[in-house]
């Protein structure tokens, strides 16, 4: 329920913008949220600077933000870091999109037909627990040392988790919607396409957002396998020669990509699902 802005705009209007932050399920204006978000990053940055500058941790292990900034500059100017970032984003998104395109139909089918669920659930429950690093040699044997094996490793870490989240989402679609669809003549396929899918969409997008992050956590595993590019490779090679500032630069790059992606998807979610009321 979005209230219209007809209320008198007094001095207390902006004040109440801050108070609503502390109200149960209150809504805050996005500029207020932004300010707070930035503030919390500044606080972390200050804490980091303090820990580093006061030498609580030796600089070999925790370089100060300034030194990391210099490393970032070096990476961009000297080593074409932009290309590494590009290739990593490409790999992650290919793996993620393939995962999603497989997980959405399979997850919906798993929740819709017990035969699909009964066949796949135990197998997926089994596979998704496995440590991906241990599966690297097998992936190489099957797929060789090219792009394919890197993307497959990212996919391995993502798909089996995502498909269960999607199946759970589909399972939670209220049976009232399904029954309504039935009495309007929808067949199974139509039920899934026209009812399950849109009904579960908001929570599915939340879960896709979550698993996109998971996919990124596998980057370093995928990009130490016969790679010579990508953020994961940069981190790994810097780590090997104890170039901690470069390691942090790589970590920072991933974190920032994550932050931006997540915030973007959250924003899209709010725009796309306004019908959920607010």
């Amino acid at each position, binding site marked *: 329920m979005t209230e219209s802005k007809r209320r008198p705009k007094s001095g207390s209007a902006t004040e109440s913008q801050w108070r609503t932050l502390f109200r149960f399920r209150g809504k805050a204006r996005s500029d207020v949220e932004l300010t707070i978000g930035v503030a919390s990053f500044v606080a972390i940055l200050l804490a980091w600077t303090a820990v580093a500058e006061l030498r609580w941790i030796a600089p070999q292990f925790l370089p100060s933000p300034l030194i990391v900034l210099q490393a970032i500059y070096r990476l961009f100017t000297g080593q074409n870091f932009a290309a590494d970032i590009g290739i990593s984003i490409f790999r992650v998104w290919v793996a993620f999109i393939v995962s999603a395109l497989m997980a959405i139909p399979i997850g919906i089918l798993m929740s819709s037909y017990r035969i699909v669920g009964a066949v796949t659930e135990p197998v997926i429950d089994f596979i998704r627990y496995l440590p991906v690093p241990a599966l690297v040699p097998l992936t190489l044997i099957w797929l060789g040392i090219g792009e394919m094996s890197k993307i497959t490793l990212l996919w391995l870490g993502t798909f089996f988790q995502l498909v269960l989240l999607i199946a759970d989402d589909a399972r939670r679609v209220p049976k009232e919607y399904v*029954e309504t669809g039935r009495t*309007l003549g929808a067949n199974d396929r139509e039920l899934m396409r026209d*009812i399950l899918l849109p009904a579960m969409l908001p929570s599915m997008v939340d879960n896709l957002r979550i698993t996109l992050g998971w996919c990124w956590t596998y980057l370093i595993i995928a990009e130490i396998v016969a790679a010579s590019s990508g953020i994961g490779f940069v981190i790994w090679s810097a780590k090997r020669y104890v170039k901690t500032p470069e390691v942090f630069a790589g970590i920072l790059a991933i974190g920032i990509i994550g932050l931006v992606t997540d915030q973007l998807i959250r924003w899209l979610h709010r725009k796309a699902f306004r019908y959920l009321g607010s």
Partner: protein
Amino acid sequence: MTPFIAIERVSKAFGSDAGPVPVIDDVSLTIAEGEFVVFLGPSGCGKTTLMRMVGGLDHPSEGLIRLAGEPVTGPSRAKGMVFQSYSSFPWLTVLKNIRFGLKYRDDVSEAEADRISRHYLELVGLTAYAEFYVNRVSGGMRQRVAIARTLAANPQVLLMDEPFGALDAQTRERLQVQLLDIRRAERKTVIFVTHDVDEAIFLADRIVVFSARPARIIRDIKVAERVPGERTLDSREGRPFLDLRREILAIIREEAQYNEAALIAAG
């Protein structure tokens, strides 16, 4: 007339931790094509359950239900349903909700689907709200969305569970008249649940009165015989109407008292 809907010795019990709870007890009933049957009965007696079984959404524990001779095995477009908790799809607007059922009719072109859904939109008085998402409209309006959607899908049998419950008197009267028109024009068979005795008499060819749970039929009243002639809003003031009204209220009151006594004995 051959029975269009045949409920044959149907019983239903729900499982619970304390064993099966009987809800419908050996009910038999036949309904002719084009007949308008109203179910009356105390809250919780099993009306919704019986209607859901006719709609194929639940299955009898014993007995069988036939539609046009064929056993009912599941829901279909032939058996349109307006649910007691009028459910609509929150991700669609009012108009798109109404249009939803037309997707699955291959006898209807896109343009015709537009025309039909606009027609029913207007019928339920929601033209001004066509583009509102359904949780931006009031309770009564949401109920009208559900009614329009079911009518637009043009089922053979209309199963309506307290459809007019949340409507104001005017809208209600208008929709009652429209419903009679539609079913006359298109010879629809209707099963209709209401707690409003006036509404029941006004609409029904037959009123079936159920006992408290487990539901048994305690009376099957041929309204068409008792209140002859055309149904108009004025016929509600006539003697036969008022007599029947009194009679039904008496039946209900008696059943309720009997039931109350049982309840006190039990509780």
